[in-house]
Structures are given as structure tokens and as C-alpha cells.
């Protein structure tokens, strides 16, 4: 009973097949059944993809879905819709919910909410320490062996700053084949910090957030990872110095991966000058030199993935004085457009690289199955059709989550996701979300098929 879809005349990206020109894709039973030209299937729905490019479904390694506990900011359903409209087919839900995702019941609950919403695969991230308290390890083994099969563990929002605890966490998580994703922020160096420490913070009288607070933790952690022989993932790298440290670590053979957010690839600290708290984020926006270094780090492979750090907040914690405002920006809906503006249109990366940093690499780090082959016959049907020639003035109306704290509102951005297909079912068609009931119903059927 699954959907059959023909994507007509799309340009493939990340297929490894090389070659230009357009291809048809036949999707059936949740997998890519066939690639070819002038495919036909009487029962198939046809998506006219002339002028569009096909990317493998995007995978976000760093999303805050806020449920349970902060449903006024986002729910698993609303965040999944924001993800789908942004071209994502899988997201990793960070653990800083209430209750914290530090037990089997919370991670399984979050996964089930994602499954029933059906827009994307929701992969829960487990907390490293109980309650993100930074004192005792959470039940990492239990979460790893749960139905949710957690593989990424993070206290994100807080840094695992205790060196001994970090050492243990790296070793213990490695025991279960997972990875610790560190939010690198030395707590004492950032007490009360509000924005990047430098020229702008000095003028604005806002407490500075020194780059060294990030770099010192990354330097310590790569050395710990080397010493204990465990894998480390560094969340949202934001400074030129951090890129240097990670580059050095990789050259030394240390098993470290790093992510960067779309906003750190495009925006700079000057945006704080009007004290508009929509530009307040952790880690803070940095200098243009940092932006350049982050782009170069992606280009030379020092930085492995782009992850959104989608962090929804209700309006009242942004509509206030800067110091009173919450940290964070929503980013799922705008991510691909921002990445196109920062990297593709500037010729830093090609679309095949985008497929790597936004799909296959984050999937590999997060152990999300089925993304290693890209768009190929037999691979799960997870894909995103993008119109790279589109241009739009990004508006609040382009957001689909519960929250509107986007720093990109009012910017003219390139590219637009026209269709997203997850597990063989469309979640976005003609640039708009497929209705929640239809997506949920299709997801239930697919799940039945999976079990059957």
C-alpha cells in the first residue's frame, strides 16, 4: 500500500554517479527502486523536478525539539515540520528537555513522538550526565541498548567541564559504540557572558565571551580523546582558533569530528549592535575572520558537518533587554538557504560537498542507517528536491515551528526546498508541508510494512 513516486527530470547530487543532466527517480516501497531516464509507472505520483536538484535527505546532528517540558517553544511534531520544510529527513533531538533525556523512558518517548509525527526520523540524543548536572554519568548503556538505540550523548547547553568526568564519559560512551558531543564552553571564562569578546562587546558594554573559552575546552578534549582512544564530536565550532585546534588534532590522527552551524557561517558579531536579542546565541556570533576560517575549515575537511542547533524560544524571552534574553536561534527552515548563500554561491563548496556535510557525514556520526549510499537504487528513499535558482525575502511566514526567533528574517536568501521525501513518503510537495494527518497516516503504514 505504499506510495509510488516518480521524480521527473531532476539533477542528481551526491549520487557518486557523476555525470550531469537530468534523471528520473522511481520510489516504491520506501526505497529508491530505479534511476533512469523516461521512467514510467502507471500507479506513480509524478513530481515534476525540472530545474531542481536532488540531495540525499538532510540529517541534522543538533536540534532542540524542546519536548518534553518546553512545548511552548517547540514540540516534536512542530520541530519535525520545521525540519521537513527545511529539507531534513532526520534530526537528532538534544537532551536538554524537562525531564532531561537521561533515561530510557525519555529517549524512547521522544523517538515514538517522532515516529508518529512521521515527518522525519527523530534520533534522541542522550544526556552524558544525570540531569545535565555534570556530576554523575547518566545510564548511557541503557539508552544505547534501548529501542531508541542512542549513539550520540551530549550535555549540550552545558559543557562537560570536569576533566575527569569527561575522560570517563569518552571511555564509557565508546564502550557502546557511541560518541560524546561536547558543547565546548569553559564555564568560569563565560560567567555572565553575553556576546563575543572583542571590539563590539567593548563598545556595547556587554560581557564578553572570549574565544579561548571554547578553544581551551576543545584542546583539552582532543587530548583526552587521544589519550583514551575514544571518539569525540565537537558541537558548533565558532572560532578560527577552534578550527586550528581541530585541524591539528586531525593531523595527529585523533578521532575527532566537528560541526558548524549555518548562522556561524554567515552572521557576525556586528549584528549585536542594535541589541536585538534574535542575534543572541550560544556560542555567540563571532568576527568576520572567524566566519572565513569556518568556511575554510569546511572546505578542507577540518569541519565535518553542518548542524543547525535549532533552538526555539517563545517571543517573551527575546522581546527584552539583551542580558535578560535567552540564547538561541531557530534554524531548520533556513539552513539550506543559508548554506547555499554562505558556501555554494560563494563557491566554497559544491552541491556534492553539501550532500556530504548535511547528509552522509552527520548520518555516519549519528549512526542513522541508510544514508551511506546517497541517492542510489536500493537505498532508502530519503531525499530533498531543491530549486537553487529561487530567491526569497525570508519571512516569519517561512517558519513552520512554534517559535519565530530567526536571525534571518528580512534577509534575501537563495534556494528553496520544493519537495522532501522521507521513508518513501512526501512530507513537502510544491514547497509546502504535506498535511500532518496524511504524513502521520503514511508513516504508520510504512512502519507496519517495516514490521511485516
Amino acid at each position, binding site marked *: 500500500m505504499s506510495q509510488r513516486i516518480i521524480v521527473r527530470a531532476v539533477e542528481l547530487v551526491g549520487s557518486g554517479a557523476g555525470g550531469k543532466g537530468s534523471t528520473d527517480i522511481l520510489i516504491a516501497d520506501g526505497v529508491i527502486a530505479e534511476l533512469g531516464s523516461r521512467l514510467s509507472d502507471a500507479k506513480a505520483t509524478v513530481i515534476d523536478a525540472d530545474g531542481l536538484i536532488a540531495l540525499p535527505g538532510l540529517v541534522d546532528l543538533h536540534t532542540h525539539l524542546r519536548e518534553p517540558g518546553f512545548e511552548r517553544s517547540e514540540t516534536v511534531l512542530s520541530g519535525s515540520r520545521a525540519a521537513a520544510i527545511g529539507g531534513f529527513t532526520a534530526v537528532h533531538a538534544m537532551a536538554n528537555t524537562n525531564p532531561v533525556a537521561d533515561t530510557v523512558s525519555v529517549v524512547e518517548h521522544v523517538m515514538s513522538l517522532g515516529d508518529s509525527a512521521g515527518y522525519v526520523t527523530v534520533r534522541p540524543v542522550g544526556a552524558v550526565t544525570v540531569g545535565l548536572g555534570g556530576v554523575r554519568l547518566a545510564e548511557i548503556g541503557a539508552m544505547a541498548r534501548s529501542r531508541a538505540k542512542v549513539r550520540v550523548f551530549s550535555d549540550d547547553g552545558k559543557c562537560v567541564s570536569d576533566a575527569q568526568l569527561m575522560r570517563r564519559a569518552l571511555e564509557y560512551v565508546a564502550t557502546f559504540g557511541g560518541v560524546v558531543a561536547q558543547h565546548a564552553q569553559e564555564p568560569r571564562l563565560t560567567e555572565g557572558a553575553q556576546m563575543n569578546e572583542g571590539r563590539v562587546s567593548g563598545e556595547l558594554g556587554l560581557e564578553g565571551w572570549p574565544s579561548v573559552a571554547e578553544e581551551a575546552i576543545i584542546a583539552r578534549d582532543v587530548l583526552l580523546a587521544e589519550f583514551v582512544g575514544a571518539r569525540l564530536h565537537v558541537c558548533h565550532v565558532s572560532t578560527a582558533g577552534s578550527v586550528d585546534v581541530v585541524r591539528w588534532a586531525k593531523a595527529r590522527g585523533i578521532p575527532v569530528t566537528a560541526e558548524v552551524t549555518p548562522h556561524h557561517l554567515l552572521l557576525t558579531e556586528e549584528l549585536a549592535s542594535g*541589541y536585538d536579542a534574535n542575534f543572541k546565541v550560544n556560542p555567540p556570533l563571532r568576527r568576520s575572520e572567524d566566519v572565513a576560517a569556518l568556511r575554510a575549515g569546511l572546505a578542507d575537511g577540518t569541519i565535518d558537518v553542518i548542524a543547525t542547533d535549532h533552538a526555539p524560544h517563545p517571543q517573551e524571552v527575546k522581546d527584552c533587554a539583551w542580558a535578560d534574553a535567552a540564547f538561541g536561534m531557530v534554524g531548520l527552515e533556513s539552513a539550506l538557504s543559508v548554506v547555499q548563500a554562505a558556501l555554494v554561491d560563494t563557491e566554497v563548496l559544491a552541491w556534492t560537498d553539501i550532500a556530504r556535510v548535511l547528509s552522509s557525514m552527520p548520518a555516519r556520526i549519528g549512526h542513522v542507517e541508510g544514508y551511506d549510499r546517497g541517492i542510489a537504487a536500493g537505498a532508502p528513499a530519503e531525499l530533498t528536491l531543491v530549486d537553487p535558482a529561487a530567491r526569497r525575502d525570508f519571512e516569519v511566514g517561512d517558519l513552520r515551528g512554534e517559535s519565530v526567533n530567526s536571525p534571518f528574517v528580512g534577509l534575501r536568501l537563495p534556494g528553496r526546498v520544493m519537495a522532501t521525501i522521507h521513508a518513501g513518503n512526501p512530507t513537502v510537495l510544491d514547497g509546502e508541508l504535506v498535511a500532518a494527518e496524511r504524513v502521520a497516516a503514511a508513516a504508520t503504514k510504512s512502519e507496519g510494512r517495516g514490521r511485516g
Partner: protein
Amino acid sequence: MKHLVSTKSISRDEAIDILDVAEDMSDVAGREVPRLPALRGKTIVNLFYEDSTRTKISFEVAAKRLSADVITFSAKGSSVSKGESLKDTAQTLAAMGADAVIVRHPASGAAEVLARSSWIDAKILNAGDGTHEHPTQALLDAFTIRRRLHGDHARGHGLDGCRVTIVGDIEHSRVARSNVWLLTTLGAHVTLVAPATLLPPSVRAWPVEVAFDLDHALAAGPDVVMMLRIQAERMHESFFPTEREYSTHWGLDDVRMRRLPGNTLVMHPGPMNRGLEISSGAADSPMSTVREQVANGVSVRMAALYLLLIGNEAEVA
């Protein structure tokens, strides 16, 4: 002027205009009935989220001398600072028909947020926001310096060539920031003196000279020495080790005072920590402008309110 939020955005002509109007206002203060009808019927709200009796009273007196209706709203410790947001308060004041809001807030940028928001369209006058700016303090400092330099012929003058040395906790001082931008705009040469811990990041990018050694800086013979209030709490955050060490290195004590030429101006925005950043001898000496600064504060604030509320209309008419 649309709002008065910072001195960074004030041009030289605007600054001189404010100072000249302040001269007129200061003449009013000398009259038998020191009051003008200029702002009759206007409602001015003093919105203070931080304690500051001195600044609050200075603005109150200024507004009353211009015949405005003044509402003082001490938000500190009340429900306002706890639950009610800046937005709610602003909307309430807008509904009350406030024409101008004088705001003092512990968060940097609070005045700017109010000025940019759609919550209220009253004129916003920044009476100190966090560690960002305190523009009327800088204006009254500039006014005081200009008067000492030019006496009754101050109108129209800038502070060209005047050498001002500002000493103390620059990093946490809104007074220092406002003075740096305003005094340099008016043509003064500014030197900042502090231990490196109390200098803002990238201070080298500011249009000032920076020095660590106070004796060295004083030996250069500045026209003005401005001492900033040092908060003893900074000691516990390791910005400096002890009060004694701070005072020894960066305090204006009697010995340093004696070495200064008699025509040097000694300024302090108050409140002073006598014996810490400034000795009593220095504070009370004829070279000190501390009490003039208080008196001039009223004139400068009258000028700011006047220009904000009717200055532009008057120019058009």
C-alpha cells in the same frame, strides 16, 4: 533629536548645540523664579530600574524647571523588575501618554531596545544602561570642562586640543564610554589609565591613548583628570588584589594631587569612594569640579529634555 541613547551617534554640531542650550538653561537657574514654561502639558516619566537618587533627582529637577509633569517610577525591587517585562512597562507608559521616558536600567542596551521598539513612541532618554552609556553624564562633564576653559564665552566652542585623562574601571563604566565618544567628537584628546584587567577588550581600537601607569600619565600634564568610581566588589572577582594596591597605583591621592599644576581640573562623576580612587584632599580642592558637575547636570538635562521634546519642532517653525 529623536532619542538620546548614546553619545556615539551624536555629531559635533549636535553636541555643541546641546551644550549651548544648556548654557541658556543655566542662566535660568540664576533667576529669581528658575522655571520656564517650555514643557507645560508634557508628561515625563523617570523609569529607574536601578537605585540612583542623584541622577533621578537631577532629572526630576530638570523636568520641573521646564514645567513638565513628572512621574517617577522606581522599578527596582517592585513587581516591575521581578515579573513585569520592559515591554509591559513600556506599553503601560505609552498608554499613560508619556511624552518622554528617562530610563535607567542594569542591562546594557535597554534604552536602545525601548527606542527601537514599537511598544512606545515616546522620546527615550538613556540615564545609564548597564555598562554601555550614560550620555547626559558625559554631556555634563563636557559642559563643565568647557565652562572652566572658556567661562562666559563658552557658547559655540568644542573642546579642541583639551587633554583629558580618565582613570579607573573603564571596562565596567558607562560614564567612560559616553565620555570617550563625546569628548573625542568635541576634539579632545583622551587617555585611559587602568590596569589591563579593567580595560575593555579591543580598547586599542578606540580613538584614545591607553596607559597603565598613572604617574606617567599625570606627568604628561593633562588639562583634566577624571577619576571613576571603583567598586570594591571587583576585588573579589580578581580584577585587582586589594583596595590598598588599587589606591596606591591608580588612586588620586594627596601626593599625586600636589604634583598637578593648579589649573588642572579634577573630575568625578560620583558617588565617590573617598580614600580609594580619590582622596578627600583631592575631592575638596579648588581644582575639583565635583559640585559644579552636580549643578551643571540639571542644566544639561534641561537642555536634553527641551531639545528632545520641542527642539525639532522649534527648528521647523
